[in-house]
């Protein structure tokens, strides 16, 4: 009797926990999406932001977010995948491996503002890149690298040993086995991880405050020569991303429609993060179904 009562109480407490959490999170998403959707229309997405007048859009911010994301992936995916290959295949238990594991752990637990300060010190000031897309992307590389390393290592380790041994037994060298057997087999896992990390990079703001800057120069969207200063592709210009924009309009903005802009930007940000997450899940699911189906 007593046991049953305590069991029931405990069960209801756990259900309550779950309900509170779900309610909070549903409210969160619902709030952002319902408040934000009203602000989103084509002119909001396609017009320039205004620093003091009403009715600014987020065209440049949106473009900057994607451009910085792309650059970050360009740096961090090759480095991270190779680092993951090292940990999964080449590392021997010992001091160096330990140091690398600790390094990855340290990098992944650094607060993003600390990464931003490092970026300010090294990329912006010492390397003289100034507040620029490239400095921002390098800082975000530091931020994203450990994620890719882990995803790659896990994906490679989850490949059945048989497969690797079969290749090695055929007299294929280690490196060739990595290239032709392990990486292709681990590809779905790596891809899923990369897309998931893209969502994280897309929403990151603190690391970009001190590296990519808080403003965007006038961009000429007909000029795609990356070496010209008005080109949207120019990596040496300062660039305010969407998430930085949300922070900036709230803490420094002087336009009258701060709240509308912030809500609209937040909704756009959330929608893209959701797209990244869902597509990672769908791609992962499809590939998994294919693999397990054939087995």
């Amino acid at each position, binding site marked *: 009797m007593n046991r049953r009562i305590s069991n029931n109480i405990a069960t209801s407490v756990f259900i309550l926990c779950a309900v509170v959490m779900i309610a909070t999170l549903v409210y969160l998403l619902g709030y952002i999406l319902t408040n934000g959707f009203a602000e989103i229309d084509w002119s909001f997405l396609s017009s320039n932001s205004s620093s003091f007048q009403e009715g600014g859009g987020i065209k440049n911010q949106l473009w900057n977010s994607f451009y910085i994301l792309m650059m970050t992936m*360009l740096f961090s995916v090759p480095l991270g995948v190779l680092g993951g290959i090292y940990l999964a295949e080449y590392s021997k238990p010992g001091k160096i491996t330990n140091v690398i594991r600790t390094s990855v752990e340290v990098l992944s637990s650094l607060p993003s503002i600390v990464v931003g300060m490092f970026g300010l010190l090294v990329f912006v*000031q010492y390397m003289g890149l*100034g507040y620029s897309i490239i400095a921002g992307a390098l800082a975000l590389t530091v931020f994203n690298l450990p994620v890719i390393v882990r995803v790659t290592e896990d994906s490679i380790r989850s490949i059945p040993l048989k497969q690797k041994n079969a290749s090695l037994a055929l007299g294929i060298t280690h490196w060739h086995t990595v290239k032709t057997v392990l990486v292709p087999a681990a590809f779905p896992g790596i891809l899923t991880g990369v897309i998931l990390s893209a969502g994280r990079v897309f929403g990151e703001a603190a690391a970009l405050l001190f590296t990519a800057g808080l403003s965007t120069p006038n961009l000429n969207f007909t000029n795609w020569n990356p070496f010209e200063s008005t080109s949207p592709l120019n990596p040496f210009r300062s660039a305010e991303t969407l998430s930085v924009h949300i922070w900036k309009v709230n803490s*420094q903005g*002087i336009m009258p429609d701060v709240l509308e802009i912030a809500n609209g930007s937040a909704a756009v940000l959330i929608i893209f993060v959701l797209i990244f997450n869902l597509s990672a899940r769908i791609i992962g699911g499809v590939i998994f179904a294919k693999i397990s189906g054939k087995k």
Partner: protein
Amino acid sequence: MKKFKSLAIMFTFVLVMGVLAACGGGNDNSSNGNGGEEGSSEAVSGSIIVGGSSALQPLAAAAVEQFQQNNPDAQIDVQGGGSGTGLSEVAAGNFDIGNADYFAESKEGIEASELVDHKVAVVGMTAAVNAEAGVTDISKEDLIKVFTGEVTNWKDVGGEDMEIQLVNRPDGSGTRATFNEFGLDGATPAEGITEDSSNTVKKIVNDTPGAVGYLAFSYFDDSDSNVKKMAIDGVEATDENVKTGDFPIWAYEHMYTKGEPEGLEKAFLDYMMSDEIQTSLVPEQGYIAASEMKVERDAEGNQSDL
């Protein structure tokens, strides 16, 4: 296999980009300097970076927009970052023009003698108080008491029985430095909520009974009936009173160049000081034209008649 090759290509690309980044950064700066000098004819070209003070950013951005209509080949990148960043970056040569809300001399770590000051506008500011406090005219003595926490209730300075809520600006902000120096005669304000944006300060003062902060004149408008301008020692906080020097709390908006301005820098600064900007854009954005001031002030804060 193919996938891996492309990966290797990507990796080399990264390295190339890295090298480019290192070189590009350097090139960028030098071309900035040269670019300006080429434009000796009427329409100037080249590219410069103007950055710093977030208070000055909207004015600078609006002026740049107009300037570029006349000079389509001129590229001027307006950045924020704060006055400290503006001074540091212009001293380091990364910005061509550094915007600041205060004199470079007032900051350590800056070789002020290397920088040339261009006072492009004047901004007046005063205490912004919630209407329910019931005080809209205050003696300087009482103002200092309010902000240093010596009195904590509005009734002690002739207002309602209501607790005083201070709203501060962050250390090092130009608005804070000006208000402390000329509004509080150098006294250090007591602790309170600290916000970086004039809009947030205005919103808090509007929403919180008994709150008091400080804002530039341009942030007071009729729509916010709850945010009241504070007159000090009976002097109304108006542009006119600032111009004559009767109202004490005002500051210059500075644009600094490293050495005398040349080329595009000079063309843009001349444009900033021209009547076209000073009589239209400057007042539109709530600033006071520097050319209309009847008094001037040096870096030590000494005021003298012009």
